[in-house]
C-alpha cells in the first residue's frame, strides 16, 4: 500500500465520525469496518456543555490516526485559520482541506483549494485536498506541495458512487505514484470495491455507514468490499473482450449430431 506522507495505514478505509445514532454505534462501526483513520472537525464550544472534550475522549479510545477537516469553510482564510486551530487541538500535521465553492453540490472551490494548499504546505502541514478529478487542478495541487490527492466520487453525502469513471481512471493513470483517496459520494460497498479496483489507495466515507439502517452491519460490509476491491486490483484482472470466448475446452467434446 502507498504511504500517506510517510505513514503506512493499516487499512485503506478512512471513516467519518458524524451522524451516527449513538457513540456506542460509532465505536462498533470503527471496529467492524477496520477503519484506520478517523476524520474529525472543529465546532463552536460552549463553556457549559464541554461536548468537545466528551467527544474527544471517545475518539481517543478508537486508537486510530486522526484526520481533521476544514468542513464548511468557503474561503481560503477560513480554511487556513481552521487548519491552524485543528493542528493545535489534534496535534497532527495532517489536514483534510475543504474549500467549498458551491452550496448545492458542495463542490470544491479548486482555485481557493490550490491557494490554501500552498499556504498550508509551506507552513508544514501535510495536506489532503478534497478536489475533483480534474487533471490540471491535480497538477497544481501537487505543485503547491500536496503529496496526496482526494478526488470526489460524487457530491458529499449524495451516495451516488463514482460519477465520472473516465475522469477518475485518467487521474489515476496520469499520476500513478501519488497516493489517492476517493472522498465523498460513496453510498454502497460496491462503489468502494469499484474505486479500489480502479487502483485508488483508500476510501474516505461517512454517511453510507452512519445513515444505513444497520450501521454496524454496513461497516462490516464495507470492510469486505474494500478488501475485495484491493485484492482484485492486486490480482491483475483479465482484459474485457468484445466477443464471447468459451471457457470450457472444445477439445474432446462429443459429436452427438446425426
Amino acid at each position, binding site marked *: 500500500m502507498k504511504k500517506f506522507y510517510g505513514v503506512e495505514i493499516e487499512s485503506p478505509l478512512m471513516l467519518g465520525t458524524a451522524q451516527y445514532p449513538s457513540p456506542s454505534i460509532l465505536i462498533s462501526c470503527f471496529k467492524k469496518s477496520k477503519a484506520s483513520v478517523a476524520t474529525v*472537525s472543529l465546532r463552536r464550544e460552549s463553556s457549559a456543555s464541554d461536548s468537545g472534550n466528551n467527544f474527544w475522549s471517545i475518539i481517543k479510545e478508537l486508537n486510530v490516526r486522526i484526520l481533521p477537516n476544514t468542513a464548511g469553510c468557503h474561503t481560503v482564510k477560513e480554511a487556513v485559520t481552521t487548519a*491552524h*486551530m485543528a493542528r493545535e487541538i489534534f496535534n497532527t500535521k495532517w489536514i483534510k482541506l475543504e474549500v467549498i465553492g458551491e452550496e448545492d453540490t458542495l463542490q470544491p472551490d479548486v482555485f481557493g483549494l490550490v491557494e490554501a494548499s500552498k499556504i498550508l504546505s509551506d507552513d508544514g502541514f501535510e495536506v489532503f485536498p478534497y478536489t475533483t478529478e480534474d487533471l490540471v487542478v491535480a497538477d497544481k495541487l501537487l505543485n503547491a506541495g500536496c503529496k496526496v490527492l482526494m478526488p470526489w466520487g460524487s457530491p458529499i453525502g449524495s451516495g451516488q458512487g463514482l460519477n465520472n469513471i473516465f475522469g477518475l481512471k485518467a487521474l489515476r493513470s496520469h499520476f500513478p505514484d501519488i497516493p489517492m483517496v476517493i472522498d465523498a459520494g460513496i453510498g454502497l460497498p460496491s462503489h468502494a470495491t469499484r474505486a479500489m479496483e480502479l487502483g485508488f489507495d483508500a476510501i474516505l466515507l461517512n454517511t453510507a455507514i452512519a445513515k444505513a439502517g444497520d450501521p454496524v452491519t454496513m461497516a462490516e460490509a464495507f470492510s469486505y468490499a474494500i478488501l475485495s476491491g484491493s485484492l482484485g486490483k492486486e490480482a491483475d484482472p483479465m482484459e474485457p473482450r468484445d466477443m464471447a470466448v468459451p471457457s470450457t475446452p472444445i477439445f474432446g467434446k462429443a459429436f452427438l449430431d446425426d
Partner: protein
Amino acid sequence: MNIIVNGENKNVSNDNMKEAMNELGFKELKCATALNGNFISVDDREFTTLKEGDKIEVLSPQQGG
C-alpha cells in the same frame, strides 16, 4: 468590555485574552481560538490584548466527515 464570543455578546472585565478566556469558563477545556478571524495559539493568548467589539471563535473537537 463587550466582546463577541462564538456569535454571542459577552462582557468581560479582562482585556488579556487568556484571562478573558478563564473568566468565560474555558480555562479547563480543550479548545482552539481565533481572534477576528486570525488563529491565536494557546501560548499567544497571554500576550494578546482584546479591545471593544473583538470577535473570538472558540472551537473544540466535534464529529466530522
